[in-house]
């Protein structure tokens, strides 16, 4: 029996219906792979819920990268120097790349690229709500790099060991590239912080606006995160939301000192008894509002993506027509 196509042919509809006994043995094989900390690969049998969870998580992650190009893309033509402009273009280009790696990983689970694009522009799919906040000043580019990319790295490093092979491999590439993103943001803030009093204030304002949203990126508290336990059992997720949030805050504190900026939480202090950072309650009502699509820039982000997709249609069609014409010529010559 010959089979074509390495990965993406693992569509559920290609798989014949298993008998009850076959399914039980497939499930046992799957469990054994997870237990042994090995990776599940595209054409392995996997529980439907595992497949669905991964499609949702990876496509949301891809959408976030693609939508995440907008708040910063906005500043490319306004960057304060040629050097900063070149850096910002490289960063936004990386985000496009990260989106593409992740879309490819999701496709190996049996969803098409076009389907994912449609879900996004028809507002049927979610993306990280962090990108629905506006970026009114240049210091926001610094705060996004330091706080938003910082939180993303904290979330993503453990995902390099996710049990699904293609997802883990995409994350390895992404994490390698993200560290430049965070450092360039830190540098923007450092230069502003050490600049004129107005520049220092601009940096502080940006940190004040982005600090809480970046902490919300880790998701709801553990006792209100219903899907976390299953994802951890499947070894997609390796640490809980609150664990990662604590780890992130612990990294920020000394970095803020170097920046000479203040983290906007008067209750933030190390608790020697609990070995944790005490902090103020997070205002989840704001998070839920933004998640529900009522954030400052939700509609604008999706509209922009839809416009780009629709006004680019002729390019895609022309390229396909050209490819078809060339192929026809080659057939004729042969």
């Amino acid at each position, binding site marked *: 029996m010959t089979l074509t*196509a390495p990965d993406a042919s693992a569509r559920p509809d290609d798989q014949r219906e298993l008998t009850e006994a076959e399914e039980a043995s497939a499930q046992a094989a799957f469990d054994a792979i997870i237990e042994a900390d090995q990776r599940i690969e595209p054409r392995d049998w996997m529980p439907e819920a595992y497949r669905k969870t991964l499609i949702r998580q990876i496509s949301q992650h891809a959408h976030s990268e693609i939508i995440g190009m907008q708040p910063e893309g906005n500043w490319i033509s306004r960057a304060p120097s040629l050097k900063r402009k070149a850096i910002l273009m490289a960063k936004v280009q990386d985000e496009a790349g990260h989106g593409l790696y992740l879309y490819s990983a999701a496709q190996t689970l049996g969803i098409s690229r*076009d389907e994912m694009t449609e879900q996004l522009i028809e507002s049927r799919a979610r993306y990280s709500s962090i990108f629905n906040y506006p970026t009114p000043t240049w210091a926001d580019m610094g705060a996004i790099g330091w706080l938003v990319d910082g939180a993303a790295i904290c979330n993503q490093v453990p995902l390099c060991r996710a049990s699904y092979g293609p997802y883990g491999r995409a994350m390895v590439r992404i994490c390698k590239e993200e560290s430049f993103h965070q450092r360039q943001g830190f540098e923007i803030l450092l230069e502003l912080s050490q600049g004129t009093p107005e520049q220092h204030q601009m940096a502080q304002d940006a940190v004040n606006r982005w600090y809480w949203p970046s902490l919300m990126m880790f998701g709801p508290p553990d006792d209100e995160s219903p899907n976390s336990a299953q994802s951890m059992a499947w070894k997609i997720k390796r640490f809980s939301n609150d664990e990662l949030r604590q780890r992130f805050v612990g990294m920020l504190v000394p970095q803020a000192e170097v920046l000479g900026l203040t983290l906007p939480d008067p209750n933030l202090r190390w608790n020697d008894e609990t070995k944790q950072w005490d902090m103020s309650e997070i205002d989840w009502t704001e998070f839920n509002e933004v998640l529900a699509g009522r954030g400052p820039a939700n509609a604008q982000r999706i509209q922009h993506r839809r416009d780009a997709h629709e006004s680019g249609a002729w390019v895609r069609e022309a390229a396909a027509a050209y490819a078809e014409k060339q192929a026809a010529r080659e057939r004729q010559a042969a």
Partner: protein
Amino acid sequence: MASPGDVAGEGWPLYEVFVRANRGLSHVHVGSLHAPDDDMALRNARDLYTRRNEGVSVWVVRSSAITTSDPDQKGAFFESPAGKNYRHAKYYEKSAEVPHL
């Protein structure tokens, strides 16, 4: 079996990308991408997978052109090397103490 590049509703076919990191190394699979034709696949592969000098040479191939082994048959398909550990040097223990062998 359907090939991913030719799924109905999918505009452009899928390509697999292989990159040679440096002279002296093999091309290694790095990922996949969609492109309308071979030339564009090559250009897209350069932009997507070699933004930081990751390679000195790139191959692209339509995913549908690749033939793979059947994952359901992997036991039977790879059966022949199993139980033939005499193909490995460490099977021969009597020479363990003998130098340069």
